[in-house]
């Protein structure tokens, strides 16, 4: 496969920016995250507008939210952000095995977060907090669920990348992919910080 020749040899210091395709991908992904910011901003606005519309006899956020579970989930997700940083650092040092290892830990932490979230939703539904219960419940599940779907997407994506790097190795084609996946993972962490604050902490205060 002589067409691969430009991929062989020494990996440059920042492999994600070594080619124009790589630079395009990174910049395009920053812009995409700009759009995602508007998306979540709108979801937050809707939630803030509707969060007091609980309806008669339905559980309020104050009654529902268990900060313990949510705090553990937050801790797990923030840690996964750190492990994804380690993965990118390993990539920059061209330590493929270490990078894969950190990515696997990131995925496992992501799965842990997702499991806690599913468990949390399951509990809420048993307490009468269904998707169609009230405007509060609809906007809650949509905001937090959109974030959860993003986490799920990230897990699938990073898993595929681990598989891909195992097959093709780290080169100027795969490195930008890993890098932007890392950006994505940080972004969903930042969104979660806002969810934790706006939805759970503010909800608990009432």
């Amino acid at each position: 496969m002589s067409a691969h020749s430009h991929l062989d040899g020494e990996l440059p210091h920042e492999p994600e920016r070594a080619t124009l395709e790589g630079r395009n991908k990174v910049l395009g992904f920053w812009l995409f995250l700009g759009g995602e910011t508007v998306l979540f901003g709108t979801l937050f606005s809707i939630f803030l507008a509707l969060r007091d519309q609980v309806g008669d006899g339905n559980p309020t956020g104050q009654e529902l939210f268990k900060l313990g579970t949510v705090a553990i989930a937050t801790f797990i997700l923030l840690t996964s952000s750190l492990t994804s940083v380690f993965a990118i650092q390993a990539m920059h040092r061209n330590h493929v095995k270490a990078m894969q290892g950190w990515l696997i830990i990131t995925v496992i932490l992501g799965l842990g977060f997702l499991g806690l979230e599913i468990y949390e939703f399951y509990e809420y539904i048993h307490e009468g907090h269904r998707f169609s219960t009230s405007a509060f419940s609809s906007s809650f599940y949509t905001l937090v669920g959109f974030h959860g779907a993003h986490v799920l997407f990230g897990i699938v994506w990073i898993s595929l990348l681990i598989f891909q790097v195992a097959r093709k190795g780290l080169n100027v084609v795969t490195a930008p992919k890993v890098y932007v996946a890392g950006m994505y993972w940080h972004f969903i962490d930042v969104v979660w910080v806002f969810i934790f604050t706006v939805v759970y902490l503010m909800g608990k205060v009432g």
Partner: protein
Amino acid sequence: MAHAHPVKRYTGLMDWLTTVDHKKIGILYLIAGGFFFLIGGFEALLIRIQLWKPLNNFVSADTYNELLTMHGTTMIFLAAMPIIFALMNAIVPLQIGARDVAFPFVNALGFWTFLFGGLLLNVSWIAGAVPDAGWTSYLPLADPTYSPGKGVDFYVLGLQIAGIGTLVGGINFLVTIINMRAPGMSFMRMPMFTWSAFITSALILFAFPALTVGLVALMFDRLFSANFFNVSGGGNTVLWEHIFWIFGHPEVYILILPAFGIISEVISTFSRKRLFGYSSMVFATVLIGFLGFMVWAHHMFTVGLGPVANALFSIATMLIAVPTGIKIFNWIFTMWGGSIRFTAANLFAVGFVPTFVMGGVTGVMLAAAPADFQYHDSYFVVAHFHYVIVGGLVLGLFSGLHYWWPKIFGRMLSEGLGKLTFWTFYIGFHLTFFVQHFLGLLGMPRRVYTYLDGLGFNSMNLISTIGAFLMGIGTIIFIINIIVTAAKPKTASNDPWEDGRTLEWSIPSPAPEYNFLQTPLVRGYDALWKEKMDGNTGMSPAEPIGPIHMPSGSILPFIMSFGLFVAGFGFMYANNEWTGFVKEIFASHAVAGLGLGITLTCMIIRSLKDDHGFHIEPEELTKKEVKE
């Protein structure tokens, strides 16, 4: 090296389905957008036939609501935006001296999602459940209680899918313009059309996600009994208006800024003068884009947001008149003292200026909140936005199409037919919409399927209908022009207008698939014009002739978008009145899941399978150059 890696190159229909070439995608956008423009125009004519006399019963009230909703939605999302994207695709990479766009695959994906979204929306006519809640789809009218059929579902899902295409298209152009400019093409040397494409793409990026969320919320309300806009469940109908217009007002500037860019190019070329006040033009474009996000509530003056909010949004809206005014004066000063050629393209451009000023003046009138209470929901508003969208954008697009047609297709449109298109369309336009200002001031409400005799509306409505038909004739002449031109040989030279100023006129018409044999070295604003003035025959190259890397075509964007189309159907008809097996597969969300599965599988294939593209070797390049 590259020959060791042979790439299958498609021909015929498969070539068009798999193409990732921005110039071909531009043509696809033009065909699809043109098709929807004809549908939307036909709907407009039916509306005007219904209104030509009082108490007419040409169409029923329900059909009228459907026509009016689909006319607005189709024209904005499926006609105007795609034709803008057609010109952006065809021209922007050429203007910045790039061989390609940043994301050719994503570019194709953007086109196909737009097309399948648009088809889904229009399949509603066949399915017999047409959206009928207006293009703004206000609540509670669009909620399951007042719009129980599938009509609004078609609106929600069709626009959602088409919106994805627009969003990724916007990102593609932002990155292309930031990262792929030729050496020397600094931001402040970029042609105005490229600048407007840049700002429009930024607006798309920050406006469309709001629509996405709004549509998701409406979809959840309709399909999964959520309560976002359901007042009995604690929802809020005004929330929809906010979300819709936070998207919807920037959308207006997404539409008009490219027209500003086109007009700047055309007027400058055909006045044989540098664009007057280029940097103020850039500044004004950026400022309009910025202010465009701060005026959404002027669509909601009568909702009752209170005097403070109304006053602030009123002032912000009036502020936009300042940068727009700068542009108008710049165009006039560009023409001033120039040796003007009134080609068809320039007629449209020059005709645009006074027409757009009229639309702008009524805009400022509407921006005055107290006065708006009088104009609101009357034909005055209809007249205003048709003056800016048809009199602004559509004239701009006609101008751009006549101007760049030789660059896109290698053939010059007939000037005679072009001028005839202009005069019929232009006169028809003013006949149709000028009188509507007065109909509005007399109190004729918009969106109502008929009116009573003796209110003084009759003759003006008749004039308006006659004007609409004249616009239709203008469009038909344009189509005849296209057909006549298509039969001619491809004889357009590199610079068929002979006064080309920008890089696209330095390469053959139509551009070869790699655009530039050698990346040009840009030495100033109006790059080609500068070389001409310095006595050079063309651009000086910034690189020696070498192998050119090209991306390979892919059918995946088509299949991916088709998957979304299937998923849209699946979700919509999960709740259906059919029987047996068909009911089951829809009700169990199997169809929706299948559609999403198709899309996700394509994404995975795309991620795992590297596209190495192929190289065009120098020998092939020089051979082609000689042949052409």
